[in-house]
């Protein structure tokens, strides 16, 4: 039974639950908008990395450099899309 539940996976799962609880905290704690966003961004990024590295095994083969580069490029495109849109539509240009 124990070998079906490797400790790395169990720890990763518990850690993601804890991070979700931390993110949940922003609606109960009295935080400034900036502080809350910092907490949300950091906890979401850690959780996403946990999934990639631990559960998706991104680094297990020789092509890991290409895979990381691919994800990094996709995230770059995503960040440019989101912040570029906000820059043009909301922040006023």
């Amino acid at each position, binding site marked *: 039974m124990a070998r*079906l539940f490797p400790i790395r996976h169990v720890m990763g799962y518990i850690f993601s639950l804890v991070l979700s609880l931390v993110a949940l905290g922003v609606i109960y704690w009295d935080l400034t908008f900036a502080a809350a966003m910092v907490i949300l961004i950091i906890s979401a990024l850690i959780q996403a990395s946990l999934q990639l590295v631990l559960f998706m095994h991104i680094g297990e083969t020789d092509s890991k450099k290409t895979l990381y580069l691919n994800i990094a490029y996709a995230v770059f495109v995503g960040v440019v899309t989101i912040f570029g849109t906000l820059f043009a539509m909301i922040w006023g240009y």
Partner: protein
Amino acid sequence: MKINDTLPLEYRTEENSNKIFGFWLFLGAEIALFSTLFAVYFTLWNRTGSGPTGKELFEVGGVIWETFLLLTSSFTCGLGIHAMRLGLKKPMMIFFIVTLLMGLGFLGIEITEFVNYVHEGATLQTSAFLSSLFVLLGTHGLHVTMGILWGAGILIQVGRQGFTPETANKSFIFSLYWHFLDVVWIFIFSFVYMKGLM
């Protein structure tokens, strides 16, 4: 056919490693897709017109359950792949069935939520905020629906054929997809619900 025994079963033929690599490229495109939907939502989230705001609409209870179910299903999906690498067919199938059932539970809560929104007069046409919200959540929910159908199909094949390079490859690629859906949900949870309820 060149077979590399040092790698897990799902990678061993060149075709199969290429399929896994290709699926990672697809996930990169999915990141771009969801980014555009988030960009629309972040632009329109306070354009609520005469409709409700996120703070009035969102209910934290359902969201916590959805998050818990999806996180746990991602965990059991990972355990399924781990069992597959140990060559244990029955545990792998049980973990995958649990994964898919939790996916169904997630969908049930999400659909109930949508029905409640519509009953409160918050429809796709009510405001720009609601249009962007329904499109973002709906696209994720559609991915989960497809994943459940896809995973069920793979389970049938694993049940019939056991672990072959093909079924192992398909199961692993499905697991990548399922974990990715959890990643997208983490961002929806944080930047739609938590930010909206703050």
